[in-house]
């Protein structure tokens, strides 16, 4: 069966293309699957600046988090080079910030490595965090 190229489809495709072009991949808002995994505690913020798994993740969640971690690492590496710092130090500093801005219900790693659920109170952070 052949698709008829209707003006409406064309307009929709054009609008999507414009949307995709105007927003760079890295500046997009959180993917709904990522947002859901965060809210449900399937992924949490680690002290080293990357996402971790408080439990055993599904294959999809693992793939998604791995993908985000690869992108994070690339960004950390680029920014660390600009600041003449190591990737680990830059990632750790980002981890401090990322744990600080978790919202209640999300999970994060405490200074001792244990998984914590963020409450309304300030999160437990490494003493080296600013």
């Amino acid at each position: 069966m052949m698709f008829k190229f209707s003006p409406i489809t064309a307009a929709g495709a054009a609008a999507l293309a414009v949307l995709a072009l105007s927003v760079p991949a890295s500046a997009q808002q959180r993917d709904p699957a990522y947002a859901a995994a965060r809210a449900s505690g399937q992924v949490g913020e680690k002290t080293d600046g990357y996402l971790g798994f408080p439990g055993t993740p599904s294959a999809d969640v693992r793939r998604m988090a791995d993908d985000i971690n690869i992108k994070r690492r690339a960004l950390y590496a680029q920014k660390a080079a600009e600041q003449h710092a190591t990737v680990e130090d830059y990632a750790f500093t980002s981890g401090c910030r990322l744990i600080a801005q978790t919202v209640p219900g999300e999970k994060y790693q405490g200074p001792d490595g244990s998984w914590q659920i963020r409450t309304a109170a300030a999160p437990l952070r490494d003493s080296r965090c600013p």
Partner: protein
Amino acid sequence: MNRHELTNRARIAMLCTMQGNRTGKRRSGRLGKPALAVLVGGAVALSGCVSVNAPDKPIVIELNINIKQEVVYRLAKDAETTINENPGIF
């Protein structure tokens, strides 16, 4: 002469407190008998309960803490900007 004096001092240092007291000329001799008794008694009492155990875990001194903290403070502002500019992956 000098050598003789040093030898003598060393010998005084090796004398027990009570013996030093008996000579009457040494500085340590100025301590009264009750004070000495308290000191000796205290030392005896303490020696009965003070025990020093070697730690079962190796002692780790983290010398890199201050250096890292300095770096973290320097990077904090830039890291915050990076996170805010890339909401998709943070």
